[in-house]
Every structure is written in C-alpha cells, then in structure tokens.
C-alpha cells in the first residue's frame, strides 16, 4: 500500500488482485446481486486510489478497505432508495435466490418438502436467511465470517464501538439461528445427505 501511496500503478494492480475476490464476495452477499457487487467493488477501488495519500502507514489495509466498502455500500443504498429503484414485484426479498421469506416460513413450520433441501437449495436458504438481516447486521456477519475480523476491527470498519458490534452480531446470529433452526438439529444435514444419496 505504501507503494500505491507513492503513485505506483503496478502496485495498485497487485493490491487489487490480492483483495478483489474477498471484496466482491462480501459485497455480493451484502447487496445480493453479483453485477451490483462488482460495480460497487470498482467504486471502492477507485476510492482507495483517490484516497491513497490518506492511508496511514502501519494500519491494517483490509480494515481500511472494508471501511471504504461499508461507506460505499451505504451511499449506494441511500442513492438507490432516493431513486426509488426498488423493484415492487420482488416484494420484501432482497435476493435473487429460489426461495422467498414465505417459503422459509413454510420450511420453519415443517411444511417444506424434504426434497427441496439439497445442497444448492440449502445455499439459497442460507442466502435468504442472510437477506432477512438488516444491512448493518449483514455487514458485521460477513466481515466476521468471511474476513475473520475481530470485533474491534469490525467496529473500526463500520465506525461503531466494539460493544455495539457485539450486540449487533449477537442479534444477527440470533436471527440466523431462528431462521435456520429447522435445518439444524431437526436433521437438515441428515436430510441433505439422504437426498444426495437418492
């Protein structure tokens, strides 16, 4: 990053290659759309380059990167809601996955056919579960899960206190547990395995 600060384009490209997959992964699960995530990631890298002179040597680059990503995602969400680009037809669901919240509620109440819960469908269910979280909860969960960040690092990236992050993550994980509970002890794995066996 220090070379990028000194205007090295090669160093910037190298840095981008090192972090682009991680950034797009977090952003895709945050916004629920691949294309939008890539656009956001480009915006984030552009912001990184523009503010390269303000990078403090010795600070952790990934924390700085995800601080910028969090701000970019928040700005994007605000401008999207200003432009009223919400797709009314898609209802409350944020994801393009195969299931909606109603199906998940069905699943939670035990009416979901067992055959649905194969591996790909399980992925969609997890996506939907993530989509039920607020954007802040989602960001905290993704940074914790995918970036293995400490509460302090997440707090720095999201401009909150570590204590607030602890509560935020606790509520998020509680919500996830609630939504995903039917797929836990009640034999989701077993059901998945038996479906894969058939």
């Amino acid at each position: 990053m220090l070379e990028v600060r000194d205007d090295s384009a090669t160093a910037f490209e190298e840095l981008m290659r090192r972090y682009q997959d991680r950034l797009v992964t977090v952003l895709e699960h945050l916004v629920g759309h691949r294309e939008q995530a890539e656009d956001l990631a480009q915006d984030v890298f552009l912001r990184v380059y523009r503010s390269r002179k303000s990078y403090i040597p010795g600070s952790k680059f990934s924390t700085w990167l995800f601080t910028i990503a969090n701000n970019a995602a928040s700005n994007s969400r605000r401008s999207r809601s200003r432009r009223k680009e919400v797709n009314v037809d898609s209802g409350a669901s944020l994801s393009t996955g195969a299931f909606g919240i109603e199906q998940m509620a069905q699943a939670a109440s035990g009416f979901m056919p067992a055959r649905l819960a194969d591996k790909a469908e399980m992925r969609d269910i997890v996506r939907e579960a993530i989509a039920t979280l607020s954007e802040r909860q989602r960001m905290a969960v993704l940074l914790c899960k995918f970036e293995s960040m400490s509460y302090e690092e997440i707090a720095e990236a999201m401009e909150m206190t570590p204590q607030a992050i602890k509560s935020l993550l606790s509520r998020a994980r509680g919500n996830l547990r609630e939504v995903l509970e039917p797929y836990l002890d009640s034999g989701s794995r077993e059901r998945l395995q038996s479906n894969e066996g058939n």
Partner: protein
Amino acid sequence: MSEPINHSTELLDDDLVAYLDGQLDEATARNVEEWLSRDEAARLRLRHLSKSWDLLDQLPRIAVDETFTRTTMAVVTTSVANELMQQQAAVPSSRRRRWIAVAASVVLAGLLGFVVSLLILPNPNEPLLVDLPVIQNLDQYRDSDSVEFLQLLKQKGRFTEEDGNAPE
C-alpha cells in the same frame, strides 16, 4: 436440573456469540463456561448458534475474472486521467488570475507610495510660493537702495502679501 441463569437471554446471547467468536476476555469466558456446564438450555442454544453459523459456509466465495480486473484498472486510469486534464485546464486561468493579482498589487503599492510621499516629503516649491510676493516685485525693491525702508516694509507685512503692491 439446571440452575436459573441470572442474565437475560439477550445478554447471555451476546456473551455466547462472543464466546464462539473467541472475543471474550479470560474471566468472562470462564463465566460462560460455568453457565454452560450448569445449564443444558444454554448448551443447546450455543450448539444452535454454532451450527447456524457453520451453515454460512454454504455461501460461495466469489472469484472474479480477468475482465473485472482490467475493467477496474481502466475505470481508475480513466478517472485519474480526467482529473489530471481538469487540473491542467484549470492552470491557465489560475495563472492569469495570479498575474492580475500581481499587477493590481503593483498599482496599489505605487498609489500608496505616492500618497505617503505627499504627506511625508517636503514640497520643493513651497519656499518659492512663500517668497512669491517678493519675487514679483524684486526689481522695485532693488531700486529702493535703502535697507531701513525694506525692513519697514517687512514689518508691515508687505513681503507676504500676494497682491504684489510694490512700493511707489
């Protein structure tokens, strides 16, 4: 039979989640372990929290292709080039503004110097103006040939009169 837990579920959840994430200090972690050893419901809750967290591993990790890298580099390069062009375009007008400012400063300094010199420096024509009545009638005074007569005129203030009334 598990002992009642003194903490609210929310607080317990906060600590259980932080415990799973390895984010508790040693003392709090020991407390949580103590609760867990005594409370089966808490153990079940912990297990569910942990398993639901593990399910997030189902989410795919994205690998972008080379097009993304190239496009992003192009976006950054274009943006930086545009900024440079804007900066360069702004240079002549800023240079012009600087020259105008310099010229205005020089003119202002000149005017100020002139006014100050008027106020401070003595006027070389002032003695001539004072002596003008004498100069105008110098020939007639010279013809008088009497110092006493001239002193008398001076006492009467005739040398300071501007109407130039010379002695007859």
